[in-house]
């Protein structure tokens, strides 16, 4: 379903993704793990037509995302790592907009929105503007939105970051259901190793833009002679803490607060 060969992404001198190769089969749940700044999100961006690779081959359902953007976009759904909601719209309006963009039939819209808002316990707040939501609520809404339509491939970029255990369980239960019943291929990243261990059939570990190991959770544990996936992960990636390159986004947010003043 996904095939990546010798994929490279460079920003000037900095190599974010350095010659990685992997394959994800149809109907598989694949976890892409790595420390902060390892290149996970950059890889997802290249798979989802948001970024052009410097070199290498990418195939999503047999199509090249940098050429057949539109065809590829029809095939996947994604929950982004950072926020992507419209704060000025209400929760319901955000989901409705998504349904229209993804051509969810009019009749099914209301029912699905209701179901997912219910599942993530946001139905009561459906008519409140998203800017009044807490961080956790926004995150839940974001996930609910990502699950509104049933794509062939679902990308989940650290979906559980900042969620309580209840919501995490709902999410993974729902994702596994999609995987079993609709054969949706799932490509996920997470920092919670036990989650990856539980839901993923295969795991790749990326560090400094390179894949350092891939296989089943058992393979990884055996190879590193460790008991848990977390230990295996640490054995493979070392224990130094990584700094992410400070994005201009934080600066921007601050500036926008000044700009908009009372509005936000």
């Amino acid at each position: 379903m996904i095939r990546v060969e010798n994929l490279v992404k460079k920003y000037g001198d900095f190599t974010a993704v350095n010659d990685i190769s992997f394959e994800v089969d149809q109907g598989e749940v694949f976890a892409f793990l790595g420390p902060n700044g390892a290149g996970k999100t950059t890889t997802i961006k290249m798979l989802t037509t948001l970024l052009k690779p410097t070199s290498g081959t990418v195939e999503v359902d047999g199509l090249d995302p940098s050429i057949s953007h539109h065809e590829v976009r029809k095939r996947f759904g994604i929950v982004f790592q950072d926020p992507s909601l419209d704060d000025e719209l209400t929760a319901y309006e955000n989901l409705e907009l998504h349904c229209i963009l993804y051509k969810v039939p009019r009749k099914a819209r209301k029912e699905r929105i209701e179901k997912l808002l219910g599942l993530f316990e946001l139905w009561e707040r459906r008519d409140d503007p998203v800017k009044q939501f807490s961080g956790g609520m926004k995150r839940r809404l974001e996930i609910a939105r990502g699950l509104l339509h049933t794509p062939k491939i679902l990308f989940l970029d650290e979906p559980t970051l900042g969620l309580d255990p209840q919501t995490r369980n709902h999410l993974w239960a729902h994702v596994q259901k999609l995987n079993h019943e609709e054969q949706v291929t799932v490509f996920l990243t997470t920092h919670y190793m036990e989650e990856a261990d539980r839901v993923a059939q295969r795991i790749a570990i990326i560090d400094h833009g390179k894949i350092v190991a891939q296989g089943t959770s058992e393979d990884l544990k055996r190879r590193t002679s460790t008991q848990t996936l977390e230990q295996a992960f640490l054995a493979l990636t070392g224990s130094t803490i990584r700094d992410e390159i400070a994005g201009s986004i934080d600066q921007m947010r601050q500036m926008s607060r000044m700009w908009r003043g009372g509005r936000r």
Partner: protein
Amino acid sequence: MNAVYVLWIRQLKRYSRSRARIVGSLGQPLLFLVALGFGFGPIFRRAGAGNYLQFLAPGVIGMTILFSAVFSGIELIWDRQFGFLKETLVAPVPRMMIMIGRTCGGATVSLVQGLIVVAICYVAGFRAASFASWPFAFVFMALIAIMFTAFGTAIASVLSDFQAFQLVMNFLIMPLFFLSGALFPLNGVPRALQIVAAVNPFAYGVDGMRVAFGASASQFGAVMDLAVLGAITLLLLGVGGYLFSKIQL
């Protein structure tokens, strides 16, 4: 087509929900109208050029639309920074459609702003020559709105943050406004200034509106105004759409 509609509606909702923006953006035109309109009025009349308010109003209406439209286009940077842009960029909708939806939304918003200023001008004493002036003037207002929203979108597609926003404002939008004849008649100004105005699309918009509202003198002629505005609008929609479709995150 639904995607265009939903993105258009989105922008209208955002606009109607932010009263601060509606009121705030009316301050500048009001100030121009009062300070310049009434301040220079007597001199203008003494110089034998007629009623200055009557001359200035189309310029101020045009200015409102110009600034509001460019800002609507540039709001794209906001959506990029706050992430909503991603949601639309990965959607299975051709990016040209997304760009058109955004542009229609931004243009409608700035047109509404322009119409509010029309009402203010009317209260201040501005009068159209006849009832038939309105649809004609509306066409020019709409063209200015679409053209500069597309322009803002094109600029925002190549900027990743607001660092360059001041640059765009001071070196592109302000000159477009001040060197257009919106504030003063172009006949009799130095030749250099005349040439600058002749290559300034906004000048054609203001001139067209003046003709529509019944001004006796036109700088370029209404047909020329319409042709230039139409052509540049199409060009900017094309360029904006192309740059938008090339956005990487």
